[in-house]
């Protein structure tokens, strides 16, 4: 397994900086945008290009894309557009570009997520990985001493034990791409001890034990643990809570999409955390930006995807 050898990234602005340095050193990266005729998507492509992060190949309805670009004040000559009016065919073309090595990151436009994922997993291409696809979010929370990873807050509705291990491994890869070579992972529950009536706490304990036995590579995993135990540490009056992760977690793993989503929203809306997200598990990362993401969050997602793409490429080359 390839572990990035640069210093760990601790804040969102460092993440951005690192992605820009990478593109300056080794060339601008390319996003393949699946069905690009949408204002928010084009704005993200424009911002990424202006900041020197990535150029985009905009696959979709050329006329619509050009009209939107005009209204956004984007110069037509600055962007490559690949005309394909049919949504399914455009998505397929965008995936093909990534599969053929013409793009580093696949970015979702206005194609339904399910359609795009089906293509990525299709045997028609060579993008499919060994594990399931899952979402990893990275949050820069004011008041926390480093970046906080979170999975899965964007993709798998409710993971079973096997899927949760895949999700965890996918997210550990993302942490490695950020230079966090041995991330501390907290399996999040509503409790800090094993409670036989709470399956989430038991699954957490099982995965923690697997980690102790060396079955989860490249990370230190502990759980069950509540959010505050993971981020604040053991209170003084708690005896015998021995955890290498408590108070210093790099990555939080939750059991359902709803819990993850509510946590991201709590941190982003109520604490103004900056965040980005990426879908991993395939040979290249997928970037999904949501309409409600701020411009900064969208760029954080793209920068994160670029670092992950690089990490996966180096890993494959080894």
């Amino acid at each position, binding site marked *: 397994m390839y572990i990035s050898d640069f210093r760990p990234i601790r804040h969102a602005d460092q993440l951005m900086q690192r992605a820009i340095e990478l593109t300056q050193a080794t060339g601008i990266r390319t996003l393949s945008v699946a069905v690009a005729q949408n204002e928010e998507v084009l704005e993200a492509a424009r911002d990424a290009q202006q900041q020197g992060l990535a150029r985009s190949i905009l696959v979709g309805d050329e006329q619509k894309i050009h009209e939107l670009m005009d209204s956004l004040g984007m110069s037509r000559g600055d962007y490559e557009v690949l005309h394909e009016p049919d949504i399914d065919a455009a998505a397929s073309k965008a995936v093909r570009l990534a599969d053929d090595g013409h793009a580093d990151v696949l970015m979702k436009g206005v194609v339904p997520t399910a359609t795009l994922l089906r293509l990525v997993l299709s045997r028609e291409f060579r993008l499919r990985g060994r594990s399931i696809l899952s979402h990893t979010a990275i949050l820069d929370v004011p008041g926390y001493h480093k970046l906080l990873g979170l999975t899965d807050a964007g993709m798998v509705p409710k993971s079973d034990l096997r899927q949760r291990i895949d999700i965890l491994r996918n997210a550990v890869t993302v942490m490695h791409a950020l230079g966090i070579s041995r991330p501390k992972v907290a399996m999040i529950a509503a409790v800090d001890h094993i409670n036989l*009536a709470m399956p989430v706490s038991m699954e957490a304990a099982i995965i923690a034990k697997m980690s102790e036995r060396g079955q989860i590579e490249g990370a230190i995993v502990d759980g069950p643990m509540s959010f505050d135990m993971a981020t604040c540490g053991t209170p003084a009056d708690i005896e015998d809570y021995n955890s290498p992760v408590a108070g210093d977690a790099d990555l939080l793993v939750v059991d359902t999409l*709803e819990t993850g989503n509510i946590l991201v929203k709590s941190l982003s809306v109520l604490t103004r955390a900056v965040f980005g997200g990426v879908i991993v598990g395939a040979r290249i990362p997928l970037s999904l930006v949501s309409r409600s993401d701020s411009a900064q969050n969208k760029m954080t997602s793209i920068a994160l995807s670029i670092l992950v793409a690089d990490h996966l490429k180096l890993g494959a080359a080894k």
Partner: protein
Amino acid sequence: MNAKHLPSQLITSFKQIKELVLTSTAKNGPQRMAITGAHDAAAMAVLAPLVKDGLIYPTLIGDGRRIRSKAESAGVSISSYPVIDVKDEHDACAAAAELAVRGETDILYRGKVPAYDMLKVLCTRATGFRQTQDLLTHVAVFEMDGMNRLVFVSDGGVVVAPDLDMKIRILNQAVQIARQFGVTRPKVALLAAVETVASYLPVAMEGAAIAKMGDRGQLGNAIVDGPLSLDVALSPESAEVKRVNSLVAGSADVLIVPQIEAGNVMYKAVMTFTNAKMGGIVVGGKTPVIIPGLFDRSETRIYSVLLAIWLNHTMK
């Protein structure tokens, strides 16, 4: 239990709650609070100001000798209060539940006994603390920066994985609590990860079903909508950006979370990384119960007791 004395005004802060509680206590006298595992420095730290303000008359249950020493080091004079000397944790929980069942205490407070043991005793029907139809549920009450209202979140503390029927009962109890804080027609959001209904997301489908029950008047005097994500429920800007057409979006009073983990991470994230104020109570039994979390600050624990007092005063 019927609320007969709903407040005439909308309550929007813990400061206001404290003032109201002080006024109503002057009229009604202190509330009796039984503390299980009272040999607890954190519980004594909470008790000191409550006793000083004349709000609470405690019964202290636990290891008598250690209770006295903890009280002494916290500077709380307990000589005039009953101490029930039981060393076993389970017996302490049972003794507290019995007081509540006999009507000899108004509030239960967990000190140094495991939360799970205490809830188990209270939930067991034979104890008589909860009636056949009752479900004990946790309601967290937040006063957050930049919001002009209290926000009630349930259930991030007791019911592990509620089914549809339990979710409706959780909702009803949370709505009832919101009313006791002057929210006459609470706006309720059924939280999910999305706003659109999708067949592969059971939480979103349940949200939609319960929301439609609200539309049909099956959930009483409340405006219910779901599925809604947290940002859309609370923030008018997010509601506008996502173009969600909903009476609840951007102005929810009550948030119903799909599972205990979701509510739990939410309240802990808010309490760890913001200046929000919070209190939490378990309702649905003979008396309100306070089960402080390990990391809850003294302030949070005191707010929880104030909530319990206010609920009792408005329920008489």
